[in-house]
């Protein structure tokens, strides 16, 4: 077994992915056994009514082993000699595998003999499949390796933190005061502690997230994607007795469903048009090869748009050709073969455009044939994929679920809403980057920019400590999307990584504050906590500095790279300069609201003595993760020389797996960005300093009245505090009409005696009459047809057999 | 062998000839084995019950079975009036056929097999499990409520015990990676520590579970609920007499040998002696080697059959509910655990540790067996004259002289 695992180092990733699932299964089974064995000794052994600590320790152990494997394997992966020699086949053999989960036979039944020959020469070579196969597989590259390490490490720390944070849940009976507050009919609400359940979902969540990271095809990603959403639903609704929590869980789930519908559409398009869901193969099929056997191609690694040749000569073969150089781009997208029939000698498209005669698409596709799909369908596929990411990463207009998701326990907020689930959307955009048309990328950039700006403005006025962080997360996710949209692939994903660490730190810090203040989340009631909670205050300060973009903190590196990319894009395409202005403004706002949060919570004089007197520092099991995360938040993006943003080691690692066409397609943008990178750094620093200065002036020693003062209606602040009225908008546009339609439809169903007067009149005159008529007709028809239904099994079978015979006879007659 | 016949007979007929010869040999084997097994049964039971057993017919009463056979054949062949005549007559043959077919795939040595099947182990299980038809039909056709009860019990018991038995067969199959019995034997050649019973703790346990379920599916005591003379008079056998009755016994002893043979292949090294290295036919030539193989295999089979006889006369019969409980609540979960355990063992345990464990198991088992044998041959400490041994020691009984 050990030999089996070590034979291919990538298999350890599978083990690390499955470990949390194992913990989940164990917990689930013991929980089941406990429920089934009430009143027996087994029940007592399994903890009886009081939840046991052991389950959490099992999950912690599983996650810690996963993290160990994740980190050591990251090292092994980075040290793999194949990177230096660009030995892709060797790399693929060591770090990826796939198997059929379900297979409907291939488009052509047997692989062409050429592949057999090639396989004899190189046994590692995979036979490409265009079959309709749902596969299970993993593929490790720099992106997934680095993210895998990040998710496992952060996950482990969060599990550790939760053991302290969720201590109350270990009691046999837990009182939930929130329930009493929200539902006036309930008094003194008691329930059993749900310690085990929390860790159960936490481990399932980690499994799904890790599976999402290592998956090599869209289908597997989609499965984990849905699992992640499901776990998020369970965890947000963890306190499901509170109406607000169950509402928030539903909201998150439904918002994600909207996005997932798009994802599903994209998958269907890919399945029918490309014949594969494997991301690498999709890339192969969509983008032109870099060079053919005659030399480098003009259209190397780009989408090639072609026109259907008119008139169609042959029904079974369609011909496509390249349009002239300065003509309109073609209406179709060329799909390239997964492999060439002769690997040594083949023609790509566009080597010499004057002599290029296009290509033919046969009726039955094989591994080696060209294909074509309408360009609009391709754009739709990209938009669908992105819609999925919009839902998961809480971009406009589906962002409203994320702040509401703060109803879950704080560690969940840290895990889901900082490090992992919301990262999935950004990750998917990064992974499928090569599959997006330029139009889609622009949509991504603008969506990100608008989200970033709107969320940052809302964060300025929030008073709930977790909601500030939530809006800050939305804003930062928008920043990442923006970066990806303008071609800053490395920048966006580096920001994803650094952000995961410092946002997890901030959330856990907030959790520590909330825990210390006995579940008080209102910033207006805090203040002066720095003296009581020294570790928390200091580590949170690190997080605030990192997110604000202070030099030498991790956030500085990623943010500067993003801004560089944005400026490069903005200067190259002056009509899109807003894509640079908005993030610069947002940088200032970010610094402002983060320092506002810190000053309000930790600096100044205590504002609520009741809260302040009972505040205490959290135990070691909660502060230790904070310290570790703080260390990561400072140094995770370091490189040498330290002051050069471009030399971040992590960025270099990510750069390995960046799509290879980026430097050619975005050549001009990159050059501009590099040219102005000092100016960008200066501007960003200035913006951050401005934000810090304003926050310090206003909130370092704030006047009590100003903090507590209510926001007057009609002011811009109120507009922000109401979150730009997004919820109200959705309420008015979607919810109200739906409910109205439902009520209207419901009125049809009311009996004349119970409905309102109008409904009654309407009902008796029209629908009820029709329905009764219909019912009578059915009844009489049934009465006459009833004799056919003897209730005898055998006569039915007789009729069935007679029908079969008759059909066979008809077939026979028709054939002759 | 096939070459020889293909020289004197044209194409399809030499195959027919070989088939006929194999069938004849197998029939002879079952007959002779039963002949001696019945004698052994009576002798062993006699000795266990402090009697002599048959002594009159032939030396040591060896021809007793012959005398019984003559008596049975000469008996009147009758059926009850209400019986379903056809099925009543037919049932014994059905039972015997099933047990006979089990031998088709059972090798008696390297190459000494009627049909070389790739799925021999599976085939034997399948065929032996259909023996139950004869019993059920006999029970039903006799038109007697005792018979019907016997048949019903047999059906329930066999269907239930088939499951753990099949799972226990899968345990060594997991180790060997084949279903062919000859291949099983080939993998266990060499020293006895190579036998699959000693392969790991799970196969070791599986051997005993398999043996128990096999005993049950041959409806041997303590699982002979289908006959259960104390409750059901003689169960499905109530109305039978004469030669038809003896067919059931042929079937029973036949299947005893068949399951013993299966156990020998699955766990106990097949035709390999466990002491001699390599394959005997390779260094002794075909005939001498095959004789050695046959001898070793038969000796192992007889050992297991004798253990079954020993069990029958030592253990009290279970109740029907106890029989079903034993199977469904104990043997079935145990065999599931064994199956999972052996799979994990194959996956996780390195070869060196596995070798050490199997050596330890083998040595410990041999030492234990040796110890038991030695204790058997040690002279009992003689009790004082006139007093009784065992639980009666020191008590006054009507027999003890005052």
């Amino acid at each position, binding site marked *: 077994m050990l030999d089996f695992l070590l034979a291919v180092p990538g298999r350890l990733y599978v083990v690390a992915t499955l470990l949390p699932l194992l913990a989940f299964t164990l917990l689930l089974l013991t929980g089941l056994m406990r429920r089934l064995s009430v009143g027996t000794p087994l029940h007592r052994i399994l903890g009886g009514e009081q939840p046991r600590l052991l389950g959490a320790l099992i999950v912690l152990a599983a996650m810690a082993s996963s993290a160990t494997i994740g980190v050591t394997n990251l090292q092994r992966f980075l040290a793999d000699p194949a990177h230096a020699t660009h030995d892709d086949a060797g790399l693929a053999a060591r770090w990826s595998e796939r198997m059929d989960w379900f297979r409907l*036979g291939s488009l052509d039944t047997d692989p062409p003999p050429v592949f057999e020959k090639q396989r004899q020469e190189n046994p590692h070579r995979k036979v490409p499949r265009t079959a309709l196969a749902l596969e299970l597989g993993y593929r490790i590259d720099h992106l997934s390796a680095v993210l895998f390490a990040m998710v496992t490490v952060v996950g482990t720390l969060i599990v550790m933190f939760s053991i302290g944070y969720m201590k109350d849940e270990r009691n046999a009976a837990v009182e939930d005061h929130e329930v009493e507050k929200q539902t006036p009919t309930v008094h003194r609400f008691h329930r059993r502690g749900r310690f085990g359940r929390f860790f159960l979902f936490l481990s399932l969540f980690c499994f799904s997230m890790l599976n999402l990271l290592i998956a090599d095809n869209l289908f597997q990603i989609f499965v984990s994607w849905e699992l992640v959403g499901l776990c998020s639903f369970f965890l947000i609704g963890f306190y499901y007795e509170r109406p607000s929590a169950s509402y928030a869980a539903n909201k998150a789930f439904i918002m994600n469903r909207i996005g997932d519908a798009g994802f599903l559409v994209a998958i269907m398009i890919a399945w029918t048009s490309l014949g594969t869901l494997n991301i690498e193969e999709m890339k192969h099929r969509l983008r032109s090869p870099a060079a053919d056997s005659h030399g480098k191609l003009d259209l190397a690694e780009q989408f090639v748009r072609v026109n259907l040749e008119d008139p169609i000569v042959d029904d079974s073969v369609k011909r496509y050709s390249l349009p002239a150089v300065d003509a309109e781009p073609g209406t179709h997208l060329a799909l390239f073969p997964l492999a060439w029939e002769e690997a040594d000698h083949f023609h790509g498209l566009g080597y010499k455009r004057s002599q290029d005669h296009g290509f033919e698409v046969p009726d039955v596709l094989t591994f080696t044939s060209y294909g074509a799909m309408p360009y609009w369908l391709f754009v739709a596929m990209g938009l669908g994929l992105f819609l999925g990411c919009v839902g998961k990463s809480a971009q406009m207009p589906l962002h409203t679920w994320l702040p509401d998701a703060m109803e879950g326990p704080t560690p969940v907020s840290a895990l889901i809403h900082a490090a992992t689930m919301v990262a999935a959307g950004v990750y998917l955009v990064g992974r499928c980057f090569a599959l997006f048309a330029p139009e889609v990328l622009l949509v991504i950039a603008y969506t990100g920019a608008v989200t970033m700006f709107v969320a940052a403005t809302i964060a300025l006025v929030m008073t709930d400590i977790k909601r500030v962080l939530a809006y800050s997360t939305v804003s930062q996710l928008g920043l990442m999307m923006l970066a990806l949209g303008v071609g800053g692939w490395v920048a966006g994903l580096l920001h994803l990584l650094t952000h995961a660490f410092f946002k997890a730190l901030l959330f856990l810090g907030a959790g520590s504050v909330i825990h210390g203040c006995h579940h008080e989340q209102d910033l207006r009631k805090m203040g002066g906590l720095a003296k009581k909670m020294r570790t928390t205050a200091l580590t949170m300060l690190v997080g605030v500095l990192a997110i604000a973009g202070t030099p030498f903190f991790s956030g500085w590196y990623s943010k500067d790279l993003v801004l560089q990319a944005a400026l490069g894009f903005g200067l190259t395409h002056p009509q899109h300069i807003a894509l640079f202005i908005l993030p610069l403004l947002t940088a200032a706002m970010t610094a402002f609201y983060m320092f506002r949060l810190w000053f309000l919570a930790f600096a100044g004089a205590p504002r609520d003595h009741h809260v302040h007197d009972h505040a205490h520092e959290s135990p070691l099991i909660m502060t230790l993760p904070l310290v570790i995360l703080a260390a990561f938040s400072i140094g995770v993006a370091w490189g040498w020389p330290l002051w050069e943003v471009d030399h971040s080691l992590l960025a270099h690692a990510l750069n390995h797996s960046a799509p290879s066409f980026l430097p050619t397609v975005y050549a001009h943008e990159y050059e501009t960005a590099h040219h102005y990178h000092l100016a960008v750094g200066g501007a960003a620093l200035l913006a951050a300093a401005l934000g810090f200065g304003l926050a310090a002036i206003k909130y370092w020693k704030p006047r009590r009245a100003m903090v507590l003062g209510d926001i007057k209606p009609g002011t811009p602040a109120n507009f922000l505090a109401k979150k730009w009225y997004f919820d109200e908008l959705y309420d008015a546009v979607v919810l109200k009409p739906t409910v109205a339609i439902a009520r209207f439809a419901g009125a049809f169903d009311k009996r004349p005696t119970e409905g309102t007067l109008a409904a009654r009149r309407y009902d008796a005159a029209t629908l009820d009459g029709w329905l009764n008529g219909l019912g009578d007709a059915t009844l009489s028809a049934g009465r006459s047809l009833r004799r056919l239904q003897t*209730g*005898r*099994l*055998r006569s039915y*079978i007789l009729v069935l057999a007679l029908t079969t015979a008759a059909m066979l006879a008809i077939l026979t007659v028709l054939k002759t | 062998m096939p070459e020889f016949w293909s020289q004197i007979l044209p194409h399809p007929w030499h195959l027919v000839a070989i088939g006929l010869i194999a069938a004849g040999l197998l029939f002879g084997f079952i007959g002779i084995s039963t002949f001696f097994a019945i004698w052994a049964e009576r002798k062993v039971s006699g000795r266990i019950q402090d009697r002599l057993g048959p002594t009159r017919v032939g030396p040591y009463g060896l021809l007793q079975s012959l005398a019984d056979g003559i008596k049975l054949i000469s008996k009147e062949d009758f059926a009850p009036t209400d019986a379903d005549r056809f099925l009543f007559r037919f049932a014994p043959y059905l039972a015997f056929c099933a047990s006979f077919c089990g031998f088709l795939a059972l090798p008696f040595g390297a190459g000494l097999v009627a049909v070389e099947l790739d799925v021999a182990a599976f085939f034997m299980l399948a065929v032996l499990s259909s023996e139950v038809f004869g019993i059920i039909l006999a029970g039903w056709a006799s038109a007697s409520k005792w018979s019907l009860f016997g048949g019903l019990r047999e059906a329930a018991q066999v269907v239930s015990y088939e499951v753990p038995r099949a799972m226990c067969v899968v345990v060594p199959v997991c180790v060997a990676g084949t279903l062919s019995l000859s291949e099983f034997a080939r993998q266990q050649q060499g020293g006895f520590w190579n036998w699959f019973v000693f392969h790991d703790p799970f196969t070791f346990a599986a051997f005993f579970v398999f043996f128990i379920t096999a005993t049950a599916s041959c409806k041997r005591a303590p699982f002979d609920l289908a006959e259960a003379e104390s409750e059901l008079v003689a169960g499905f056998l109530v109305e039978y007499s004469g030669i038809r009755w003896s067919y059931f016994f042929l079937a029973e002893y036949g299947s005893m040998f068949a399951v013993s043979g299966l156990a020998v292949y699955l766990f106990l090294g097949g035709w390999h002696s466990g002491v001699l290295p390599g394959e005997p036919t390779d260094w002794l030539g075909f005939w001498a080697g095959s004789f050695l193989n046959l001898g070793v295999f038969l000796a192992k089979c007889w050992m297991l059959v004798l253990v079954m006889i020993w069990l029958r006369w030592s253990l009290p019969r279970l109740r029907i509910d106890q029989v079903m409980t034993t199977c469904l609540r104990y043997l079935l979960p145990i065999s599931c655990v064994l199956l999972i355990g052996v799979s994990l063992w194959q996956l996780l345990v390195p070869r060196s540790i596995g070798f050490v464990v199997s050596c330890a198991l083998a040595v410990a088992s041999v030492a234990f067996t040796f110890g038991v044998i030695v204790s058997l041959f040690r002279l009992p400490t003689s009790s004082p004259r006139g007093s009784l041994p065992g639980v009666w020691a020191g008590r006054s009984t009507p027999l003890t002289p005052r």
Partner: protein
Amino acid sequence: MTDLGLTPFLVLASFLFVCGVVCIATKRNAIGILMGVELVLNAANLNFVAFARFGPPSFRLEGQVFALMVIVLAAAEAAVALAIILNFYNNHSTVDVDRADELRG
């Protein structure tokens, strides 16, 4: 002389199928109907295996896999059917399917 081909198997399978259908249509005993179903399934299985043997190479595995699935499902079906029949017998003291003509037991 040609060797044994596909057609005899197909004809035999058709015969088994027809026997099964007639059995289902004529038996009044519920268990008899179950036997008819088994006959039909066996006919189908025989076809699967025959095509696995005589059909194109890609059928060699597929035919067997389908047959195996059918065997397994048939066993499951028999178990459920018997449970239903026993239940019916407990309620009505008969296994005559002509008596089972009401939706409420």
